[in-house]
Every structure is written in C-alpha cells, then in structure tokens.
C-alpha cells in the first residue's frame, strides 16, 4: 500500500466502526426452512454452490423442497399431505 495517510485513516476508522457495531452481524432473524409446504415450482432455494434450484420442485407439497416461513409457523401449516416439517423429507418417486 503506497499511501500511509490512507493506512492511518483505515486503522482509526476501523477502530471506531468496530466500536459502533455492538452486535455481530450474524444474528438470528426469526425464519425457519419449512419442508413439504411449497407449491410446485414455488420452493425457495436450498442454496449452496452453483445454486439454480429455486422454483424447481416438480410437484405440489414436495417433501424435500422448502419455503421460508416465520419461525414457529412451519409445523402449523396444513397441506393435503399433512403438516409442514422442519426436517427434509423424501424426494418424490
């Protein structure tokens, strides 16, 4: 790094920035993944590298496809196949 002025500014600014953010960024945000409730093609994504899976579920209420719902509401959701699940279910045959 060529400029010491910027280096000095960075050190000072970082110290005050770190002091400003009392809370770490990684806080829970009150959502859970709910399996088995998404309609065909409306599932959210299981993510991971090279993700292209959002909206790819083949059947309604597919047991291994999930949708984001407010925390605590998953297992209260009723589908023709039963309630939503917090654990991933079987892929469709």
């Amino acid at each position, binding site marked *: 790094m060529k400029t010491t002025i*910027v*280096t000095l500014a960075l050190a000072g600014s970082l110290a005050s920035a770190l002091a400003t953010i009392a809370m770490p960024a*990684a806080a829970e*945000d009150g959502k859970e993944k709910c399996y088995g409730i998404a309609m065909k093609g409306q599932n959210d*994504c299981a993510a991971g590298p*090279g993700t292209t899976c*959002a909206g790819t579920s083949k059947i309604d209420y597919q047991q291994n496809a999930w949708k984001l719902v407010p925390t605590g509401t998953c297992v209260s959701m009723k589908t023709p196949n039963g309630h939503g699940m917090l654990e991933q279910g079987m892929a469709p045959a």
Partner: protein
Amino acid sequence: MSAATQTAFAAGLFAATPPPAGLTAWNSRAPERRYGVYRNNVSASLTGALSSRFPVAERIVGLEFFRAMAQAFVLLHPPRSPLLLAYGDDFPDFVAAFEPARDIAYLPDVMRLEVARGRAYHAADAAPLDPQALAAVDPARLGDLVFTPHPALSIFSSPHPAVSIWAMNAGERPLTPLECWDGEDALVVRPQMIVEVTPLPPGGAIFHRLLAVGETLGLAAEAAMAAEERFDLSTNLAVLLRSGAFTAIREENPDEHRHHA
C-alpha cells in the same frame, strides 16, 4: 401435440386473434371458448406473478393501474423460462418506457430495487464476515485487504429517492412527505434468511462497488474520498460490517501473510 401445433397454440396466447386452426375441445364444441379460458389463465397467472414480485410498485400505482401495466407487459414479453421467480426482470425497463407511467419518474427504480431484492432472496446462503476477523488484521496491512462479496449482494443506485420511497411503501418506514429528492444508494443483501435493504451514506456506493469487484480496501477508500467529499470511512466500514455484504477477507498478496476465512 406436434411442434407446429404447439407453436401456433403458444403464439395465439399473446395475441387477440382467433384460436389456431385445428383445435378441438374435450366436449367437441366451441374450442374457441376453451382456448379463451386457457388464454385468460395464462394472462392472469403471469400478471399475478408480477404482482407478487413487485408489491411495492403495485401499492404505489394501485391495483387497477398495475394490472393494466402488467397485462401490457405480458403480451409483449411472454416468459422465456419455466421459472416464474425470474419472470419480470425486465419489467422495470418496460415501465420506464410506458407512456401512462411517465409522470412517476422514480417508479422504474423502485421496481429495480424489488428485482434486486428478489435476486438476493434466491441467491445462495453464506455466513457474513465476522467483524473480529478485521480487528485481527495488522493495522499496517489493512489497505491491502480484498473482500469476498456475499452471493446475494447487489449495490443499488438511483437518481431518485427510490430507497426511501420503497421503504415507506414496503412498511419499513412510516409514510411521511419526502423533504429531499436527491438520489439514493443502498446495499441489497441477505445475511441470513431475510433480504435487507441498507441505505448507503455519501460515497458508499463507489466504496462498496469497488470492494465488490475485488479492489483493495485502500484503493476503494481513496477513490471514494476523491469522488465524494462527504465520504466518511468509519461510517462506511460500520455499514459494511453490519450489513453482512461481504463474507471473507484476504490480503492482496496471499503468499506474504496469513489468511482469514
């Protein structure tokens, strides 16, 4: 269905023409009416998909206006992919050229922000950078740091106060008259499960954009200071760390020093 029949069937869905020749209905009567029902369902479902992607735009212009605008778009831009979640990426551009919406100059940008939010929602999960990783770096080497952007990150800029207008109509902020009509910038990112829109302070867009394309922290800070005299490094670093816009840091010369994950 033969390929030719399929093409004719599909083409008729987006034009106010009689149904393609050779269609039959299950009850062998009035295939025109059955085809009309099909055509109406296509239009209604695509309009509905646009409503659910652009709830704030719908709220701003009202249901009736939004529907009419969406129907005009659907006719000219039938979906190219079976994934409805990507449908309407180019709807903001269409609205920008849509004569009846011309007076609402900020509307296309509010919709671009909604597109960015949709993309962030469906991007891969990744854990945001732990601020303590930065605290552990030798202060003399801070300028050489390179940041890895979060897969969900995009940096939104508008010559209109589109971020405030979005926030007020999305229920994130109380509806108040806008005093300042200057342009606004924001980070769109999904650090955990929920998409967050973080308004950026002056110079923040330049700073975060340079970092997102892999420039060093020193260069990004210098460029932002040069471009915007109100740029405050400390405020921007706090926004960067709190927003979860980046996931990892490394030094520009990896062979010289340790790594941070």
